[in-house]
């Protein structure tokens, strides 16, 4: 396996790490199954691309893509909680709907951004960002606000009895997760200097797989382990895929290979007694 393969595998792993971290928040901390990543991730990319093409600064485009991602995930939560639709279905629904919005924004299915400058030292910046994210979230979860947030996922009825507004905390968690999905989508566009409207296809599965690999590797007994597991999982997941591709598979086999990796992880997790 060449140096480039490892390097780009790490970069993609870091970006996937943001998605997996985002998915961990509703799935593990709020016990809410959320698939809005499938829509928020490409939406982040589409918003970033559109903004940059219209001459806005990259920073502003990044912030707006995060806001749009957060809005989309919160919309999915609103549908699930207000209309009593299953959260998974609500996630799929908004993701399907936002596909048309992405096409409207971009005007065509794919846009190249080759003339724009790329991020310098991306691996270092992403790694720093990831550490900062873990530290901030860990600090938040150990405050009284964070305690109430965690209580919602662990015992919703208990939380209600103690005056915690479950829906409010769920919106907060979904908004944060959506922000990370949008951020990851923009990062991917920055990295590959290319936006494709179908880039979000299967991202929720990749994110979940990364989360489960991390949990199978380091466990989730403590808060620190729980927060680190999606990122470690994402990096390992991308490296495994890189390794498999280096072994002679065609790029068209990628979906089959990733599906098999997910199945192996599920099997190993069940063997270890970890619930998925």
């Amino acid at each position, binding site marked *: 396996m060449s140096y480039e393969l490892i390097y780009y595998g790490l970069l993609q792993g870091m970006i996937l790490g943001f998605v997996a971290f985002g998915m961990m928040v509703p799935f593990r901390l709020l016990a809410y199954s959320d698939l809005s990543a499938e829509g928020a991730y490409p939406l982040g990319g589409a918003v970033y691309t559109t903004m940059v093409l219209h001459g806005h600064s990259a920073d502003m485009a990044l912030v707006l893509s995060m806001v749009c991602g957060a809005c989309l995930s919160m919309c999915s939560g609103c549908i699930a909680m207000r209309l009593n639709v299953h959260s998974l279905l609500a996630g799929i629904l908004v993701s399907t709907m936002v596909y048309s919005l992405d096409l409207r924004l971009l005007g065509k299915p794919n846009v190249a951004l080759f003339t724009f400058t790329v991020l310098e030292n991306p691996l270092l910046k992403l790694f720093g960002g990831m550490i900062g994210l873990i530290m901030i979230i860990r600090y938040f979860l150990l405050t009284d606000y964070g*305690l109430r947030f965690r*209580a919602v996922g662990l015992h919703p009825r208990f939380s209600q009895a103690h005056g915690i507004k479950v829906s409010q905390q769920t919106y907060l968690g979904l908004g944060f997760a959506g922000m990370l999905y949008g951020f990851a989508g923009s990062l991917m566009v920055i990295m590959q200097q290319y936006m494709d409207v179908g880039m979000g296809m299967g991202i929720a599965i990749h994110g979940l797989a990364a989360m489960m690999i991390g949990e199978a590797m380091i466990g989730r007994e403590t808060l620190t382990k729980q927060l680190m597991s999606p990122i470690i999982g994402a990096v390992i997941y991308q490296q495994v895929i890189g390794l498999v591709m280096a072994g002679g598979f065609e790029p068209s086999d990628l979906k089959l290979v990733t599906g098999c990796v997910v199945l192996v992880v599920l099997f190993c997790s069940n063997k270890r007694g970890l619930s998925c």
Partner: protein
Amino acid sequence: MIQLKAVYKTFNAMSRPVINDFHLTIRPQEFCVMIGANGSGKSTLFKLINQEIKPDSGEVNVLGDVYSVKQQVKEGAIGDMTVFENLALALMKYPKPLQYQRLRLTIIHLLENLDTDLVQYLDYPLRTLSGGQQQVIATLMGLYSNNPIVLLDEHTAALDPRMQRYLMQLTNKVIKRLNLTALMITHQVEDALQYGDRLLMIKEGRVALDIRGLQKKALTQKDVVGLYQLHTKTGRGEYEL
């Protein structure tokens, strides 16, 4: 204050009303102990007071927020959180900045004042404690949850006699200290006589016996059992001492 006026409640599967023309007024800061056989309507009454279910007819007026302490620990506490985190959740009604660390001192002070040995387990996950210790924590969480009315639904039933005695003493101490309005269901006649300002006996969805003060103190376990059997046999309605 809790007030029930001519309350009826019937469940579809049952022909007779579970709560049948029920009248009861519980004054603020009163500690009522409720006894009665299984199926007499005690738990339904709790659900009505807690507004989990609505009466078919009649009025249920409750002034103040209600918290219900159940027999199962998992209903009232989070096993995956530490003892401190559980108590902190119960003690803070609204989160305030920098409250969290101050709460630790408050909780240590509170546990020491109650003569419990739980301070040493403050950073242990709740699920690692014994069933009795977990129930003590869950009960304390309910009592200190900033709700003026507390319903205790056989909260000592699953414990051994020594732990039952300890938890009852602790419950009584906290209720008196916090001036709570409390309503407790128990099958322990000894506890019913020893604790509380007022004793209520429920039979077939009605108050069969309602005594307080000196009358309650004069009553013995034998009297209560005798009275209850008499009611069970004759079904004469409300008994007057």
